[in-house]
């Protein structure tokens, strides 16, 4: 019996039949996966017809929280949305912080599993004891923020939390996202398109089932220690002030800030677009996820525009990566993308790719409906984003994402798409962070850093590197040695963090979570016993499961690689000049560690 931590129930909703069913959560089913991302993966693994059309009614869209979500644990504020990705055709999932997860937890549902397709646009109102199917033709085409406000007004309850799609999701842009808490985003792998394909405008939650842990005092003392670790962390002040945008100057300093679509790693105007500049000019306050004492998110106001964010990926993606020197424009785009419901990473990749292809005369304006787009051309960028979200003109093709869109062009143009397995690469040039490069190559949702977040390679802790990963080189960002071992370790902690629905910035980058601590948190939280070793084994099994699931989706070993640019071309200047990634070697070592034959 699951008495503590968990809500103990799952909710299945069939949108075609407008029916729902509540099932008890089986403790032997959930125990080996804990919750969050791992539990969602297991659900997909066991129940999805892998051949299904990702935008068809058979695809499952799973919202999942974990046993410690919404508890006193700092930053236990994430929920994961999982489905077969329409962008990549493989495992898709994306997590978001903010307030939605904590409210979903209070409904007592650890997972909400959506299937089918509604006959007309509707939203779901889920409480502990009821599910309402509410038709909402009036919200068709409305932005995520408009929908959020309208639903709060209609329900006469401004405290409901809402995960919604914008016009991009309704139009099934393959990289559209789900937005909650105003500006919190399940960005990657096109979960918004899956939601749009089900004609579900929003999932609204309001719960009242309290979160109760098994051992309150034990849990509290562990929480106190974690709070103290966060507050005393050497980077606390910097992270409080800048959040993830601290990476703009940090990455530029080591020459890996993607500039003009990864052609350069040093941006000479970084001071004009940095997190420091944002904090000193447009930031008006700190914002926070549920129960977090770091408050690293930010709210900004500029002329005619205001929003929460941006995080580093969006800031870099809409400045240096596409050659834009205007910080206000990037802030405008952050708000614009969130309202339309577009993932910023995939959007900036399709734009940056097109810019580079046009710059190199690989794609002419005549090939793309007369569209001419050059580095930092703000009017053209704004226009293209609108065309993508509404699938107007050439936007209809760009809405398929850079990888699919490139298929209609030359091989040279195709090679310039910065993706792995169809998912666009994040803002961090792997030529100067090799363990991240390996992570992009092997990550189960395609090019992604969060699957391992091997931050350790940037710490220069040589002795610890030797002890833990067999070589000092594991802490040398430019080396390939020891990186497979580092990634194989980090990915278990990353998955654990996701399964506890904790923030990775805190869990991993601030080094707050380890296996021993997780086992104590789970014991105090749920009353279930997990040894550190058993947690590690469990997470490895889930990683194997993801690998097997992707095999069924058709992923091959040769897909685990990096774009040619990172393997063959070196950066022209800066501290990472001359470096390329020996990706094959790292992938081989990584596969050997997992005993995967490929």
């Amino acid at each position, binding site marked *: 019996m699951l008495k503590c931590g968990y809500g103990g129930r799952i909710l299945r909703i069939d949108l075609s039949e407008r029916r729902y069913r509540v099932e008890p959560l089986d403790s032997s089913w959930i125990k080996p996966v804990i919750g969050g991302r791992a539990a969602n993966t297991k659900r997909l693994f066991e129940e999805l017809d892998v051949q299904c059309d990702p935008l068809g009614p058979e695809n499952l869209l799973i919202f999942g929280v974990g046993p410690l979500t919404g508890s006193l644990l700092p930053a236990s504020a994430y929920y994961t949305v999982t489905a077969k990705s329409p962008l990549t055709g493989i495992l898709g999932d994306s997590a978001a912080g903010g307030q939605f997860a904590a409210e979903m937890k*209070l409904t007592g549902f650890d997972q909400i599993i959506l299937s089918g397709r509604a006959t007309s646009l509707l939203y779901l109102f889920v409480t502990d004891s009821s599910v309402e199917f509410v038709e909402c033709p009036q919200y068709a085409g409305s932005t995520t923020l408009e929908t959020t*406000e309208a639903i709060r007004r209609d329900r006469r309850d401004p*405290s409901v939390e809402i995960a919604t799609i914008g016009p991009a999701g309704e139009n099934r842009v393959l990289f559209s996202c789900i937005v909650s808490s105003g500006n919190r985003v399940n960005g990657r792998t096109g979960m918004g398109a899956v939601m749009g394909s089900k004609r579900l405008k929003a999932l609204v939650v309001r719960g009242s089932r*309290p979160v*109760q842990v098994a051992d309150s005092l034990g849990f509290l003392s562990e929480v106190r220690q974690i709070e103290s670790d966060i507050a005393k962390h050497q980077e606390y002040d910097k992270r409080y002030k800048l959040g993830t945008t601290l990476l703009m100057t940090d990455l530029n300093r080591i020459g890996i800030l993607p500039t003009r679509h990864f052609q350069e790693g040093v941006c000479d105007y970084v001071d004009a677009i940095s997190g420091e500049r944002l904090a000193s000019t*447009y930031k008006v306050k700190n914002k*926070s996820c*549920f129960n*977090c004492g770091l408050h690293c998110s930010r709210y900004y106001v500029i002329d005619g525009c205001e929003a*929460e964010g941006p995080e580093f990926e969006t800031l870099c993606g809409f400045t240096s990566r596409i050659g834009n020197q205007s910080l206000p424009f990037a802030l405008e785009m952050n708000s614009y993308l969130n309202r339309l419901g577009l993932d910023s990473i995939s959007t900036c990749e399709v734009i940056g790719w097109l810019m580079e292809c046009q710059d190199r005369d690989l794609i002419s304006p005549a090939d793309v409906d007369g569209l001419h787009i050059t580095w930092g051309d703000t009017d053209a960028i704004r226009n293209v984003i609108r065309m993508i979200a509404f699938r107007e003109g050439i936007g209809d093709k760009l809405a398929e994402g850079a990888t699919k869109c490139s298929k209609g062009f030359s091989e040279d143009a195709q090679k310039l798409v910065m993706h792995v397995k169809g998912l666009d690469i994040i803002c961090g040039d792997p030529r100067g962070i090799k363990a991240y490069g390996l992570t992009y190559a092997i990550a189960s949702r395609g090019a992604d850093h969060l699957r391992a977040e091997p931050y350790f390679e940037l710490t220069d802790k040589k002795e610890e590197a030797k002890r833990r990963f067999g070589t000092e080189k594991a802490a040398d960002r430019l080396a390939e040695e020891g990186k497979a071992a580092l990634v194989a370790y980090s990915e278990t902690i990353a998955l654990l963090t996701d399964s506890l629905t904790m923030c990775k910035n805190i869990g991993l980058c601030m080094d707050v979570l380890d296996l021993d601590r997780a086992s104590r948190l789970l014991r105090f939280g749920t009353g279930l016993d997990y040894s550190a070793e058993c947690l590690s084994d469990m997470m490895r099994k889930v990683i194997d499961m993801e690998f097997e699931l992707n095999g069924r989706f058709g992923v091959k070993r040769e897909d685990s690689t990096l774009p040619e640019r990172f393997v063959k071309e070196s950066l022209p200047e800066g501290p990472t000049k001359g470096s390329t990634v020996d990706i094959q070697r790292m992938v081989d070592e990584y596969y050997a560690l997992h005993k995967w034959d490929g």
Partner: protein
Amino acid sequence: MLVVDIGKCTGCRRCESACAFFRTGRISNRLARVKIVSLYQTGIDGPVACGQCQERYCDCCPHDAITYGSLGQVIVSPTSCRLCGACQEACPIGAIEIFNEFVYVCDLCGGRPRCVEACTEGAIHDQREEENHPSLARFKKGAKGMSLAQKRAAYVEVLGAEVRKTWSKAHA
């Protein structure tokens, strides 16, 4: 009495969690006597709790279940209270809420408010010897017919408008 500086609130809801946890052993905003409102369209977040208003609108209990303690805090007698909802209805800012047959209203934890300890931002203070109790008269009329959550949101929106003025000044 609790004094709130909503310009400092980040919406983390640590006050809410601490309140619920230390008073009930469990966590839920329904069990908290301080409730955070987050207005996503304006970036304003703010805690709503009893601030011991001048008017004492809750002093209307038909069963005399409400008294005021030495700290000025509201004390609800569990034996006299019939859960009629008069106090909840009367409070113009939604600071009293009945949930599962219990009246949730700030009583300053009897002198050591946990929300104040939990707030790392200095957005909630416990001010003793404070003579200037706030007037909520301007919220009373508009609150008619509103749900409790709507009353809280309307209150935070008004306070937030002042905060937003300081933002526009900062960037003028």
